[in-house]
């Protein structure tokens, strides 16, 4: 019997009244139209969220003060069926090029007008890896806890 322990990914399944082409397009080119405005890591209000439409393309945000914040990059870009993004924002809500967690979306046609989306955010154990781990606890008492409160306020409003 194998005792290999695998960490739990976050998984979601959505059924959309849209074609895979449209769903893929809205998630990527259209991300700025739906991304929650409260969720970013910039110091100034969010202006735009961008996913560059190619493997190796950047996933980043622009802000009202003219600054940019990298979030990650595109690992796999196969419209209309598969999108894989590297989420490199660590537990302190800082961009960390050395951190790789994976966000994967698979778009499958259910019929001519509906799409099933299988969403997964995995490799979460890596949030506990590396040098970031030592700083994480420290940050969670202050910044992280603070962000959580802001998030809850936004979610409840």
């Amino acid at each position, binding site marked *: 019997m194998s005792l290999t*322990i*695998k*960490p*739990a990914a*976050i998984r*979601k399944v*959505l059924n*959309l*009244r*849209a074609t895979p082409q*449209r*769903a893929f397009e*809205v*998630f990527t080119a*259209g991300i700025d*139209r*739906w*991304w*929650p405005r409260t*969720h970013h890591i910039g110091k100034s209000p969010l202006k735009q969220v961008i996913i560059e439409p190619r493997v190796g393309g950047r996933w980043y945000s622009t802000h009202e003060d003219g600054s940019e914040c990298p979030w990650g990059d595109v690992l796999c870009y196969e419209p209309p069926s598969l999108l894989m993004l590297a989420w490199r924002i660590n*537990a302190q809500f800082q961009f960390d090029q050395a951190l790789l967690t994976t966000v994967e979306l698979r778009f499958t046609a259910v019929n001519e*007008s509906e799409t099933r*989306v299988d*969403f997964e*955010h995995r490799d*979460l*154990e890596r*949030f*506990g*890896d590396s040098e970031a*781990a030592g700083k*994480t*606890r420290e940050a*969670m*008492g202050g910044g*992280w*806890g603070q962000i*959580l409160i802001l*998030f809850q306020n936004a*979610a409840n409003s």
Partner: protein
Amino acid sequence: MANANAFAALADPTRRTVFERLKDGPRSVRELADTLPVTRPAVSQHLKVLKDAGLVIDRAQGRQRVYRIDPHGLGQLRAWLDRFWDIALEAFKAEAEREIDEAKEKDKDA
């Protein structure tokens, strides 16, 4: 601090369910067992693993122990991400379906 074990502890589906019940607030062993198809001793065992992994903390309240997500553990991050993606994906779904809904409204008006 067993941060590296935190997510591994959540690999077990029942344990994950126990953990996710705590997202809504502190719960006693009895409250958890009453809403899950699991015995109280089994719930206690899962909570012990979650506690050892730094995901939950407990305190005595009267004669029972009440558990909640450890605000200083990585479990809070997973709980946050889980909720965050629910909100983000709901917004994504609404946007993906928006033009179809608008087209239907137009058909109705016509």
